[in-house]
């Protein structure tokens, strides 16, 4: 019997990212094993996964706050120009 992965699991990239961290970034991998970093935080730091932010598109105040908290000053400057 073949157990097909659940749809949810198909979108879950954590296994791939963990393998990549173990292979190429052992120090960050150690942090993940110790629980001091999440798989995604370590992957973003390693540059193998893009840094992203989830923006609420019904509330501009909330969106601005999220962007200011998570985006770098350079990112915000360029975004303002582009918007």
């Amino acid at each position, binding site marked *: 019997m073949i157990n097909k992965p659940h749809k949810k699991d198909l979108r879950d990239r954590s296994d791939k990212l963990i393998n990549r961290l173990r292979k190429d970034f052992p120090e960050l991998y150690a942090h993940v094993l110790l629980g001091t970093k999440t798989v995604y935080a370590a992957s973003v730091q390693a540059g193998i996964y893009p*840094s992203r932010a989830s923006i609420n598109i019904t509330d501009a105040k909330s969106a601005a706050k999220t962007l200011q908290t998570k985006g770098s000053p350079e990112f915000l400057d360029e975004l303002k120009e582009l918007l």
Partner: protein
Amino acid sequence: MTNQLVERGYLTQSLGNASHSGEHGFKAVPGLLKLVLDKRAWEERIIIETGEEFEGFRNFEAYVAANPPKGLGTDVDTIERLISNDTELLKAFRAAIREAHPNGGDRKSKEAKGKISFSIRKTDLPVGETKAYALQKLSDEKRYDLLEQVKSGKLSLHAAMKAAGFRRPRIAIYLDDPKSAAKTLVSHASPTFLDELRRLLFDQQTT
């Protein structure tokens, strides 16, 4: 009445066996579970293996966890995996599980709340962004119109939750690529939202 007790007995026996039988389980469990929920097989019944009359379980959750021949001898997660393709059945199953916790919430005494508990929850009721939680929430809030649309495939569960106002529409943007972020925002957000966002970002810069 005797017929009903025997029927419940046979249903329990069949569902218990099916939930432990791999591929067969995927085919048989949904149909049997529908009957078990419909006939309330966890209540008073005859135990087929021994012929004795059993007073039944107080709730469905206990019935699922109890060892055969009285219970199914499995767990909620296993049953959920076996019926995951049938949203209607999943909803009914969750509703039966919730019967055991009609009031919900943390109902421990003040003293008990102060103590650290090492017990493990037997049943993880659905939370957050899960499919099960969305079904439960729409059902609890009596949004049957949206549930019908989900069932017929006209609407995704996420879209239904957004339409009901239980989830806020969000988009993910790349924080290392302003061009991509701007493009995503412009294509998804309303002009009013973008005007307000521009104003807030520029205000922040000037202050």
